[in-house]
């Protein structure tokens, strides 16, 4: 009887060991997160750092604006609704002459706005039916207001309007998918400035840096 018990136990042990040793299955768990993502770049996909050079603003006998030699075309991508805010720095005037009772150019003499948008693309969400909204006054896609008497016209918005962070644009999700190298998952926004050359106090140059910020909401 003792032998029977021993053999039975041995068999049981053999079975248990065999069962524990020979795993035939295994699992692999894949995890990840798609975070909220927004992007604003220039047309090459690089960090936006554009210069709009207004050049030498010599007064003439016309009411023609100077809009600069360049424009800032911005590519926007997002996987959520977004807002764009803009903020101008103080106008830095160098080599300024004596005002001598006259006026010196200021931020309010420089119109600022969105001159155009391209809202379609193969991987743009809701392409063709987007409803991106330019904040009132910043939409100059129809052109700048007309100067009539050689003075700064009543711009909808100027650089003075964005001396503090100010929302200028908002919209729904932009990108269906793709990354920053995808050629059809962004919208393009063109930012413009304009000013009328006048007999402002002479200077050797002026500048203001406009900082654009995109955020998801």
């Amino acid at each position, binding site marked *: *009887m003792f*032998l*029977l018990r021993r*053999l*039975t136990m*041995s*068999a049981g042990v*053999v*079975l248990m060991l*065999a*069962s524990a*040793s*020979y*795993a*035939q*299955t*295994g*699992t*692999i*768990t*894949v*995890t*990840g*997160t*798609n*975070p*909220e*993502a927004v*992007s604003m770049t220039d047309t090459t*996909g690089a960090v936006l750092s554009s210069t709009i050079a207004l050049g030498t603003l010599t007064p003439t006998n016309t009411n023609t604006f100077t809009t600069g030699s360049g424009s800032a075309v911005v590519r926007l*991508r*997002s*996987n*959520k609704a977004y807002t764009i805010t803009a903020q101008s720095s103080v106008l830095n005037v160098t080599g300024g002459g004596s005002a001598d009772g006259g006026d010196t150019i200021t931020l309010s003499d420089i119109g600022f706005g969105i001159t155009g948008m391209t809202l379609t693309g193969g*991987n743009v*969400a*809701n*392409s063709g039916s987007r409803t991106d909204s330019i904040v009132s006054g910043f939409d100059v896609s129809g052109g700048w207001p007309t100067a009539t008497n050689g003075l700064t016209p009543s711009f909808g918005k100027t650089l003075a309007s964005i001396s503090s962070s100010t929302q200028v644009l908002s919209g*729904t*999700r*932009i*990108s*269906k*998918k*793709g*990354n*920053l*190298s*995808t*050629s059809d*998952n962004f919208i393009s926004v063109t930012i413009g400035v304009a000013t009328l050359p006048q007999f402002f106090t002479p200077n050797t140059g002026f500048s203001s840096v406009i900082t654009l910020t995109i955020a998801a909401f």
Partner: protein
Amino acid sequence: MDLGRGIKRVICAAAGTLFLHSAAVAQVLTDTADGVLSASIPFGNLTPGTSTTPSSTQVQFRIRSNNDTGYKVRVSAIFNVTPTSVVPGGATISASDIGVGITSLVIEPSVKTPRTDAIAAGFNYDPATVLAASGLSPYTDAASGRATLADIIANPNLTILSGPKITNNQGINSPSNFITVTVTFGLLGQFFTPATLSGVLTLTIVNGP
């Protein structure tokens, strides 16, 4: 109680039979430490960038088999995505965005050679080296040579690897009687709908062919 010689023989035979029967389950699939395979592949935060190279990661496991008819490694998968934001007009990541390929089979010295192990069509590629020139998922499907997780979900118990007998002894106490299999996963971060994703692949080794 004194057992007769006949009864003892029967018991011995039973024990032996049970042992042999157990040993006939001749396949073993383990992690690289010879433990139960339970690997995790965290892709982490898939922030879209400018790179055309997908994020990739690998899992290795060992297979052993002494079955005369060889072995098959089968795989099934499930995949879940939980959006954390609304989707309007956009795309949400799916199983077809995750490339899956067997990128290496390393044969240890005691493994029988020559070998004719076969990787399933479409899975014999390296998802880490497929460029996403357009910034979109570069994987297609198994039929076109770039298998994805969606191929596995669509074909439960899909045989992704098979081959002849690996060794005479499939016990995990030997350091040289197994094949190390490397599976590589690839995924390109994109402007997908904000979400968390989770997928589980279950691998099983069974008798071939």
